[in-house]
């Protein structure tokens, strides 16, 4: 890692002077390095990734010694506001207390090093920026050292850097004092990155840089955007997906104090008002006649029945080995089971919102988004502008979980439509009901498995059929993510399961159903349901074989050292096998997603039909843990998010309408339900993976496996809700 990197070959660099004075470092990713997912080999058509190398920056050093790190990614709780600056500060030898952070604008320089569009998602920020942000720091350091060498008339290699200074013997010059001179120097063509043994910041638990402002209420979220002339808009949307406005009467609405205007937009009818309260009252007073369209009778119970019917036939093959049919005919023990996971809303704490100001020569947008260049492109298209005429200001995201990364740019496009129709700057705001009913859900999935078991208790044939909606269909990712009709995110965690690799005869099939309901990636995407199915099935097999669930997994995963490392560490820390207090049982699950390997051990009791999760022990192998404390926070977060969904959450449909509306009926985890959490990190030098999502998939099955151990009842459908009553 300490070998010099030939930057000119890997990246296109620019050092330019800022208007304000100081040093600006910009990198652009050459087209050739763009690919969509780790392992994907060809570059996708990326219409959003414009090719103009506009001078943008990752780092600014002010003549006042301030160091500002520009984030190509969005801070939504995952602490990237701290992790990416750690990478730069490490190589720069910056004084950590002088670091400031800003969200970058939407620009080609900031596109994802792997995905080719500007996106925060796929638990990919840290590993995908690990080189780029360190290089930005190292390059800047090299320029500052050269500037100091010139100034002092000494050789550059006689100098060192420390805590924001270039040091020569007993003399030292601050980075700020060198910033201007450094801008006039030629850009080095290669830099040397530090040897990991010299790291002072990377790998150390580091406090969040956005902590103070989020504690005193000054942090600005999209919802907090206010400026002179900005109106608040609320849109009445169709009660059924795909519904259209036939006609509307806004007489009563316009009589509400503070309501200025009512306009029709493609998604419904928007009330423009002085503030949220007037907008809400104005919307409540609208009378709209809807054409409900073809989804008017949508019913999730009936949909599930249709899924069951479909699952009886094979569908498209997503993975295949050996001959399952002949293996089944030879086997005496065959288990069959069906697992179901419901539609889920992301419901980030901050309901969606987006402020838009259309000017004579462009448009400005203020919002919390995970997908800047996509939103920019969508806004430009609506307004007949070039993407670069649309300026995106990214604010803190009050949670994302995937909802704020929409290839359809739904909430941004709608806000632009409202601003365009109203002719004034508007901030569209969503109520919680709008959020819960607004779609872009984690799709409902049905998994049906038939497994033959050999004399040794191990699976000899495994047939697995999934039914559900595709997330990738109709998005720019379709060409890369859908192969031969199979959406990779529908079958991830099954088709590539390490368990299936050990089964000589296996087949994974997929039925992709018609896209009736808007769906989207929800924290951990396909793994959010596949791990539940797979880890439950493995538990069923272990019990059928009368083997310990941990030992059974160890045997099947013997050729998968990273799974084993996470499994063994969690089992050891949870003291697997040691008796628990009466009434408490353990369950275990291990799953790989987003390049990381996580085991969860749940301790659960069931009293009078009510599930109580007492403790979760987590072990993760994500390769290098850049900030171990934020990694722990992400595991706590994934447990909370996954457990809430497992215990309570589901979106259902009846007569076309979503039956849930707010946190009283779309229930999520609360303090009283939160278990004790212990997180252990596998010391690993393996390839880096993500941490925002991989903790989640094994949560539900660890809990339901513990429920089985406690009660003998196998939970095969989520949420658990009152199934044990």
């Amino acid at each position: 890692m300490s070998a010099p990197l030939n930057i000119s070959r890997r990246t296109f660099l620019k050092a330019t002077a800022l208007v304000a004075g100081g040093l600006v470092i910009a990198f652009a990713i050459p087209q050739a390095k763009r690919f969509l997912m780790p392992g994907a080999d060809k570059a996708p058509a990326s219409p959003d990734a414009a090719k103009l190398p506009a001078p943008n920056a990752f780092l600014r050093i002010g003549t006042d010694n301030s160091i500002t790190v520009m984030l190509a990614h969005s801070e939504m709780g995952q602490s990237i506001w701290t992790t990416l600056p750690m990478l730069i500060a490490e190589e720069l030898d910056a004084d950590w207390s002088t670091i400031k952070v800003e969200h970058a604008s939407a620009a080609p320089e900031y596109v994802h090093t792997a995905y080719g569009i500007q996106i925060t998602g796929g638990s990919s920020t840290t590993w995908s920026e690990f080189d780029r942000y360190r290089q930005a720091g190292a390059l800047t350091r090299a320029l500052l050292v050269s500037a100091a060498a010139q100034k002092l008339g000494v050789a550059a290699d006689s100098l060192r850097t420390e805590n924001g200074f270039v040091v020569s013997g007993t003399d030292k010059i601050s980075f700020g004092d060198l910033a201007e001179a450094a801008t006039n120097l030629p850009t080095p063509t290669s830099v040397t990155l530090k040897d990991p043994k010299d790291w002072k910041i990377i790998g150390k638990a580091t406090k969040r840089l956005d902590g103070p402002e989020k504690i005193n209420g000054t942090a600005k979220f999209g919802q907090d955007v206010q400026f002179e002339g900005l109106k608040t808009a609320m849109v009445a949307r169709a009660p059924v997906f795909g519904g259209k406005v036939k006609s509307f009467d806004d007489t009563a609405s316009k009589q509400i104090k503070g309501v200025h205007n009512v306009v029709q937009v493609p998604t419904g009818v928007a009330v423009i008002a002085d503030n949220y309260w007037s907008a809400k009252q104005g919307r409540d007073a609208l009378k709209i006649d809807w054409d409900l369209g073809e989804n008017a009778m949508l019913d999730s119970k009936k949909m599930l029945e249709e899924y069951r019917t479909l699952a009886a036939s094979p569908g498209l093959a997503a993975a295949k080995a050996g001959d399952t049919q002949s293996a089944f005919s030879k086997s005496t023990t065959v288990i069959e089971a069906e697992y179901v996971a419901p539609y889920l809303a992301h419901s980030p704490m901050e309901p969606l919102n987006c402020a838009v100001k259309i000017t004579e020569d462009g448009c400005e947008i203020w919002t919390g988004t995970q997908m800047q260049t996509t939103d920019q492109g969508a806004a430009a298209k609506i307004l007949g502008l070039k993407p670069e005429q649309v300026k995106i200001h990214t604010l803190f995201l009050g949670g994302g979980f995937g909802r704020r990364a929409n290839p359809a740019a739904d909430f941004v496009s709608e806000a632009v439509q409202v601003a365009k129709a109203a002719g004034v700057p508007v901030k569209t705001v969503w109520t919680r009901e709008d959020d819960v009913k607004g779609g872009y859900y984690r799709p409902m999935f049905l998994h049906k498995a038939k497994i033959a078991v050999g004399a040794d208790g191990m699976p000899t044939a495994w047939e697995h059929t999934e039914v559900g909606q595709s997330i990738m269909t109709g998005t720019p990712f379709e060409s890369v993510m859908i192969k031969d009709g199979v959406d990779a995110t529908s079958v991830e965690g099954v088709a590539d399961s390490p368990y299936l690799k050990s089964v000589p005869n296996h087949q994974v099939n997929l039925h992709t159903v018609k896209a009736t309901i808007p769906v989207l990636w929800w924290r951990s995407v396909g793994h959010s349901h596949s791990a539940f199915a797979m880890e439950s099935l493995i538990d069923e097999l272990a019990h059928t074989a009368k083997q310990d669930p941990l030992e059974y997994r160890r045997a099947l995963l013997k050729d998968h050292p990273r799974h084993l490392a996470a499994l063994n560490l969690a089992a050891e820390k949870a003291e697997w096998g040691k008796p628990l207090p009466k009434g408490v049982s353990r369950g275990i699950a291990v799953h790989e997603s987003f390049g990381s390997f996580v085991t969860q051990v749940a301790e659960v009791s069931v009293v009078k039909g009510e599930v109580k999760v007492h403790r979760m022990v987590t072990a993760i192998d994500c390769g290098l843990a850049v900030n171990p404390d934020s990694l722990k926070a992400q595991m706590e977060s994934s447990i909370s998010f996954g457990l809430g969904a497992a215990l309570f959450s589901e979106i259902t449909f009846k007569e076309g309408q979503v039956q849930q509306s707010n946190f009283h009926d779309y229930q999520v985890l609360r303090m009283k339900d939160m278990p004790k959490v212990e997180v252990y990190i596998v010391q690993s030098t393996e390839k880096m993976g993500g941490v925002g999502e991989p903790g989640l998939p094994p949560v539900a099955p660890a809990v339901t496996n513990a429920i089985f151990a406690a009660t003998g009842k196998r939970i095969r459908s989520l949420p658990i809700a009152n199934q044990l009553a």
Partner: protein
Amino acid sequence: MITLNINGKDKQLDAPDDMPILWALRDVAQLTGTKFGCGMAQCGACTVHLDGQAIRSCVTPVSAAVGKKITTIEAMQDDKVGQAVQAAWQEIDVVQCGYCQSGQIMAATALLATNQTPTDADIDAAMSGNICRCGTYPRIRAAIHAAASKLA
């Protein structure tokens, strides 16, 4: 026009009687530290103090606050308990996205103002009305205990 006492100062606000305190604070008084999460007393993001009591400002009309004192997150740094809570939040690095945290801190401060030695059960009871979608619950619990021991 209605007169509300916010963070120790009387303010004249152009807000109708039925406007929830939340929107009077955010949209009229431009105090955006108090957040909106559900609008029906389900999430606690909008928690403020009314005469020292934690209330859900999204369902409490401004008319109910006339003659009373509204205290928001913006004033917690001037409050002895608030300071201890904020310091513990910082020490334990509680926040993630941060959106729920104003409400969490207001609820925790109200709890500690009346109960200096909260048990885990007290914390469950006082804090379960405050949702955190990022799952900062273990750290909130730890921070409340830490603040309590600082205040003792």
